[in-house]
């Protein structure tokens, strides 16, 4: 009955009303109309799928189809979550003419790079400590942290730190910054 109504591909509110009445007349739960309508798969306009109450059976063709589709979707998502390759080559490069201890990270400006450097010197920071350091550098804490992590994401698809208070720094980033100067796409 539900498939009849959706045959033309359009289900109008009037049709739904008729269905509700018909379900009631047949002693069916009127509320199940919505679930049944919803279950009408647009790719299989023929009668609604039969729930396999009679034991367990896997449709192996369907499993293969799904695996293929899943493979495609994984690829699509992998491309999204491991970003397009970034062409920024020099990750750590001494800033010429300035004190040699300050290196540039992620192409950030001097102040943000200094803060990122400081963060990388310890695994865990209290928010207050970082706030003090940011203030000394003339940076607004939250905005600066946002910028640092964004830059980290842009180049390495992962944040430099996580958490709010305390901040937990991913020290493996030091190695990545040293040894993976160019971003490698998946």
């Amino acid at each position: 009955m539900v498939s009849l109504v959706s045959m033309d591909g359009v289900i109008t509110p009037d049709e739904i009303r008729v269905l509700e009445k018909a379900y009631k007349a047949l002693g069916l739960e009127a509320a199940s109309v919505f679930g049944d309508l919803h279950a009408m798969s647009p790719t299989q306009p023929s009668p609604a799928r039969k729930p396999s109450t009679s034991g367990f059976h896997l449709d192996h063709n369907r499993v293969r189809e799904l695996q293929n589709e899943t493979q495609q979707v994984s690829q699509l998502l992998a491309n999204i979550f491991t970003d397009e390759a970034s062409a920024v080559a020099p990750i750590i490069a001494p800033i010429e003419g300035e004190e040699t201890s300050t290196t540039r990270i992620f192409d950030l400006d001097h102040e943000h790079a200094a803060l990122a450097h400081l963060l990388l010197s310890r695994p865990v920071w209290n928010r207050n400590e970082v706030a003090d350091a940011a203030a000394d550098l003339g940076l607004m804490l939250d905005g600066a942290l946002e910028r640092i992590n964004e830059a980290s994401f842009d180049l390495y698809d992962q944040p430099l730190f996580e958490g709010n208070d305390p901040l937990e720094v991913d020290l493996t980033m030091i190695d990545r910054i040293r040894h993976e100067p160019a971003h490698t796409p998946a």
Partner: protein
Amino acid sequence: MNQPIRPRERDSVIQSLRAGVVPRVGQHLIQVGRNQEITTLVSDLERIADGSSSFRLVIGEYGAGKTFFLNLVRAIAMEKKLVVVSADLNPDRRLQASGGQARSLYAELMRNMATRSKPDGGALPAVVEKFVANAKDEAKQNGQSTETLLRAKLSELTELVNGYDFADVIAAYCRGYEEGNEQLRSDAVKWLRGEFTTKTDARAALGVRSIIDDASVYDQLKLLGRFVRLAGYSGLLVGLDEMVNLYKLANTQARNANYEQILRILNDSFQGAAVGLGFMLGGTPEFLLDTRRGLYSYSALQSRLSQNAFATGGLVDLSGPVIRLTSLTQEDLFVLLQKVRHVFAMGEVDRYLLPDEGLAAFMEHCSGRIGDSYFRTPRTTITSYVNLLAVLEQNPQAQWRELLGAMEIDADSGAAADLDVEIDDELASFKM
């Protein structure tokens, strides 16, 4: 299945599934199928990033994976540099109200504001500071005062409702920073979060005449959509789940007022009246289709939604605003179990704790125990599956057949004995 799996994502996925909740990160690792639905939403996100708008209803029955889907789209949005705000509706959080429930929804959205670098929420100050910091940098380069530049940048917002006051509040935040006035900064954030409840208080604290109240929630979101773009993000995605709470409203007038708001959002989106703003609403089939209480009960929405809600000629039509998530099938669940096994093993095939036959046996076991619901509402199925994997991992000497068999003893079904025999036959040569 050759995606790299990060330990953090793996742990998050496994822990969440074990606790019976939807993971907040790493959803993409266990996505099964739904290629078209995801592609559609990804193109929506790209439209938002291009300064356009989008509106989608994500409709699915309990257990179909609405929340999972919404969370996945959130994660994709953050990856695409959108700011994401999300909230579940409940009796005290609605789109439209007169007793503070809409403002309360807005406040919840703001608390949950997330960006790629702050995926767990609380990103509002970071977003504001990013805007202010950019303005300060630019002002320094141009030799202007920060406030002048800030005002110039925000001038495009002043044509919108609350736009002037919004600019004032951002300027107050900046002043608070420059003068070391913590109170002023936190008052500014409080205003932006919609946490001022009276105009008098807001005026005393910030000198502004308005607050974000029930009536201005949607306008404020439109304003934010523009603001985050000024701050350097690509746009704003608003995710609202549990829309069925509007359906449950007993008062017809209140319900219709909320549906009217949805209509307004939908119309704005179709007409391109909102900039860089997308809405994604999750609800059940009743919420959409019920002609007495659902969206179909509101005739203007009916006509806009019914045409496209179902595809014609056996084709999926995803150009309409409704994305329909069908309930999982056994085959979906089977592939999902494979994915979870893959994530559990950090993507290393040698470390798989169960062979495919084991997955099927597990499903058959569940089917015998709880019937069809084991794949339609798979929450408990997945939890016990992850528990099984965890036991196998920690006890390398354990045989999954025995574990399943041990579970069988609890169940008093006659089919259990048959099951045992079948598995033994099939897997006599299986090694861990």
